[in-house]
């Protein structure tokens, strides 16, 4: 009893960005990345990384849903009966995703159409349920928000890297939300015999690109290598 009481007294003294909290933010970016290390949320990473603008919108959507969800779950964590916690989590994430979907449809309709079913599928994104279960259910709101930002950003970072590689080699262009696709390769390059790589547009190459990122990451950090 005394131990629990002690912890609860100590907690409020912790500064907003203590070392532990900073770790929540930075760990998922590299050593505990949701995609390359935990290998979660792979299917959306394969499906919507053809263009950078889609990847950015998707990453932002996931971050928003994750922050909102983690915060809500964390606030309710002591009142959720553990037997029906998955249903409660689903309700929370579903309502947030519907919100995001409606906002996307209202303001960036083209991209929302291109993302098609994958916005709805954020509900089933393993990263989100994983963070609810593994973190928000057992932590206070502020660390939960940091954890959400960290994991969302880690997911987004890989999405953006894969999308940049795929768009440059697959379409010879780069696109940002609101600016459309910018072709930066001059015509002379194509006339000299260069061609866009169609395989880059197909999903298998996203898998290969993610694989190469994992390869590079693990060769830089041998601690991540399993036998």
């Amino acid at each position, binding site marked *: 009893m005394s131990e629990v009481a002690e912890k609860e007294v100590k907690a409020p003294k912790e500064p907003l960005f203590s070392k532990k909290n900073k770790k929540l933010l930075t760990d998922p970016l590299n050593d505990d990345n949701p995609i390359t290390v935990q290998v979660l949320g792979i299917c959306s990473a394969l499906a919507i990384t053809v263009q950078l603008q889609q990847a950015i919108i998707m990453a932002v959507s996931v971050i928003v849903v994750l922050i909102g969800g983690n915060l809500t779950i964390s606030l309710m964590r002591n009142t959720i009966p553990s037997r029906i916690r998955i249903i409660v989590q689903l309700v929370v994430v579903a309502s947030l995703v519907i919100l995001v979907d409606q906002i996307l449809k209202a303001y960036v309709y083209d991209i929302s159409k291109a993302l098609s079913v994958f916005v709805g599928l954020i509900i089933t994104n393993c990263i989100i349920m994983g963070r609810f279960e593994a973190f928000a259910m057992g932590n206070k709101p502020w660390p939960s928000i940091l954890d959400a930002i960290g994991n969302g950003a880690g997911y987004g970072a890989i999405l953006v890297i894969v999308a940049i590689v795929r768009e440059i080699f697959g379409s010879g262009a780069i696109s940002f939300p609101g600016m459309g696709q910018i072709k930066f390769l001059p015509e002379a390059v194509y006339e000299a015999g260069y061609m866009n790589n169609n*395989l880059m547009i197909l999903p298998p190459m996203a898998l*290969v690109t993610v*694989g190469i990122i994992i390869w590079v990451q693990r060769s830089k950090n041998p601690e991540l290598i399993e036998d």
Partner: protein
Amino acid sequence: MKALEQLMEKMKPNKDAKFPLAYWVWDGTYTFLFTPGHVTKKGVHVRDAVDLKRTMFTVIIALLPALLFGIWNTGHQHYLALGEFTALNEGFMDKVIFGLIKVLPLVVVSYGVGLGIEFIFCSINKHPIQEGFLVSGMLIPLCMPVEVPLWMVAVATAFAVVIGKEVFGGTGMNILNPALTARAFLFFAYPTKMSGNAVWVSTDVDQGQQVVDSFSGATALGNLAETVGKPVGDAANDSILAMFSTDGMYSLYNSFMGFIPGSVGETSAVAILIGAAILLITGIGSWRIMLSMLLGGLAMGYIFNAFAVNDFMTLDPIHQIMLGGFMFGMVFMATDPVSAAQTNKGKWIYGFLAGFLAIMIRVFNPAYPEGVMMAILFMNVMAPTIDHFVVQSNINKRMKRAKVATA
């Protein structure tokens, strides 16, 4: 020879350098030229002279007929398109020289890029250079259309060696056949340069020359793919089917001898069968895979004959397997000892399904006339599963026997 060996010994670089690229390049060249000086240290062992290097070399020798024929045929098809030297026995030297100009760069690029990457990986991982790429480097140019740009061959080779082989641990560890990986990469990445009718025959012309009017440039399978979707006997197919009759361009004789457009090494069944004989006599290629793949292809051909929904299906099965890369895939690609099934029973299943699927893909999906590549790659992926079930069934059988004996 002695002088060369001494010279090599003198040039031996330091093995313990931080980045021992020089040492492993030297080691690779040395063992390539002379027998490696390894001796068994303990006990009595019988050592077979056939090691990895000699195996690879036998395959290269088996590939030579297809390569040489491919070089001549490249020139032959080119001059046919121009309407010059149309008879087979005319302009032999012109055709060979033209073919050499076209084919040799493909071979050089493939070997240069592939071996370069292998050398770099060997020095990073600090192990001797393995000879695995010797065969892949020859297979890659042989399964390419002659007009494929050289930089694409370089990119495909790099992809095949790095993603197809080195990520799995190098020679002997790859799941997929590296040469087919390179081809599949190009097929999906740059479809306009790997299919259609502009890449199979070189139509470079000098001043004053021009391509004859009737020239089409499509392969036999490309033509046949156009008959799919129309009923049997449709008048639109008549001109295509005429090309496959006894005096047409793709007659059984021409397809068997290889006087037709196609990838560099795949057209001539005769040249490939000479290679097959070399592989079978030396025991390097698996006769089980070759035979079962042949049977699989014929079986599918006869099944299609029985249904005969379109004109592609009515094609004689013997003729069917002479076209495209079926023979080449059967002899050189499917028999790759690393990516094929390992058990004897598994080899039968593996080969039969590869042949069966190859003809099926070819006829059912006109967008992929080269079904052989897909079929073999697919079976490469399935091979470990096949082996697993074969081994398991054997274990179960013996377990049962053991139980009966003890009971």
